[in-house]
């Protein structure tokens, strides 16, 4: 479903993604794990056509990401790391906006929106302004939006950042369910090892723009001789604390953003 070959992205002298190759099969839940600044989001941005790679090739749902960007865009849905809803619109209007951008007719989207809103427990808030939503509600709405046009692949870039455990549990239950029922391929990143362990079929550990190791959670634990995924992760990536380039505290800011907004 996703095929990445020798992809590299340089920002000036800094190499964010370094000759990366991997494959995600149809129906798989694939997780990218890595410390801050490892190149996770950069890879997602390239796969979702908003950032052009310096070199390399990518295919999604059989389409070339750099050439057939319109077909690629129709094939995936995404929940961004940072919020991306219009606070001045209602939940329904945000979804409607999305549906129209994806070329859906009213007859196609009207029922689908209501179904999805019930799926994420927001049916009763259909006509409320998003600015009055909590962080968890916004995330759920974003997931509904990501699924609206029936994508083959769903990208989830740290979707649980800043959410409480209840909402996190609920969110992953949806995702697992969806993957099972509709066979949606999921490409996710997260810092919560327990979540990744529970949800992902296969995990790639990425650091300094390269994949260090990949396999199932138990593969990774076996290879490193550790009992938990977190220990395996730290064994592979080291103890050193990372800061994202020129964005110290960006994660904190994101969390604040979510709490406030």
């Amino acid at each position, binding site marked *: 479903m996703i095929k990445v070959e020798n992809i590299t992205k340089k920002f000036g002298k800094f190499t964010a993604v370094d000759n990366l190759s991997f494959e995600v099969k149809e129906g798989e839940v694939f997780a990218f794990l890595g410390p801050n600044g490892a190149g996770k989001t950069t890879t997602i*941005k390239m796969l979702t*056509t*908003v950032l052009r790679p310096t070199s390399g090739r990518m295919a999604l749902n059989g389409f070339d990401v750099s050439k057939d960007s319109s077909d690629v865009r129709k094939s995936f849905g995404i929940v*961004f790391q*940072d919020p991306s809803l*219009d606070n001045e619109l209602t939940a329904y209007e945000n979804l409607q*906006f*999305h549906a129209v*951008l994806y070329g859906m007719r009213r007859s196609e989207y009207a029922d689908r929106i209501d179904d999805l809103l019930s799926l994420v427990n927001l049916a009763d808030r259909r006509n409320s302004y998003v600015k009055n939503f909590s962080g968890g509600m916004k995330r759920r709405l974003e997931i509904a939006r990501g699924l609206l046009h029936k994508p083959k692949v769903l990208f989830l870039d740290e979707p649980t950042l800043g959410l409480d455990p209840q909402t996190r549990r609920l969110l992953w239950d949806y995702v697992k369910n969806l993957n099972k029922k509709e066979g949606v391929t999921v490409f996710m990143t997260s810092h919560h090892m327990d979540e990744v362990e529970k949800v992902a079929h296969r995990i790639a550990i990425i650091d300094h723009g390269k994949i260090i190791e990949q396999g199932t959670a138990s593969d990774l634990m076996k290879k490193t001789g550790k009992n938990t995924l977190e220990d395996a992760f730290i064994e592979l990536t080291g103890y050193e604390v990372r800061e994202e380039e020129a964005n110290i505290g960006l994660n904190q800011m994101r969390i604040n953003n979510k709490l406030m907004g």
Partner: protein
Amino acid sequence: MRTIYILWLRQIKRYIRKRSRIVGALGQPLLFLFALGYGLNPIYSQAGEGDYINFLSPGIIAMTILFTAIFTGTEIIWDKQFGFLKETLVAPVSRFQIMLGKTLGGATVSIIQGLLVLVVVTLVGFRPESAMSLIAALFFVTLIGVLFSAIGTTIASRLDDMQAFPLIINFIVQPLFFLSGALFPLNNLPPALSFITTVNPLTYGVDGIRGAFTGAYYFSFTTNVAVLSFCIAVALIVGAYQFSRIQA
């Protein structure tokens, strides 16, 4: 087409829902009208030029459209900061459609705001030649609305945050307004000022609205339309190019 419509609709909804901003945006034009209109009217009439309120009002309407259109265009910076732009950029629509939808939305908002000011200045004492003149004036109002909304959108596509906002105000919006003939007649100007007003596209918009309302164009109806249309074409081409280069 539906893409452009939904982008346009979003701008309109956002505008209508911020009533305080609609009222707030009427403050500045009113201040100009009172301070300059009433303040300078006595000397203006003494100089034999007629009623200054009648002269100034089209300029104030043009000012309102200029400010509103550029501000609405720069709303894209907010979309960038609050992440909403990404949602638009990953959608299967061309960047040109996004640019066009945004521009038309901003233009519509600025036109509505301009018409509100027209109502207000008419209440205060502005007297158009005839009701018919409204149609020609509306045409010019639309042209400058589209032009400056496109310019605002283009500028915003290059900027990442609101830090640069004072720069836009002080180096683009205010010079465009003050050096346009919105406040003073264009005849007998010093050569430097005369040159600047001639290359300022807003001048042709102000002259268009004023000409439509008073029946006396400084340039001509055709010149004004030609210059403004040309500027719109350039702004859209540059804007579409800038938009195609946005990366998230």
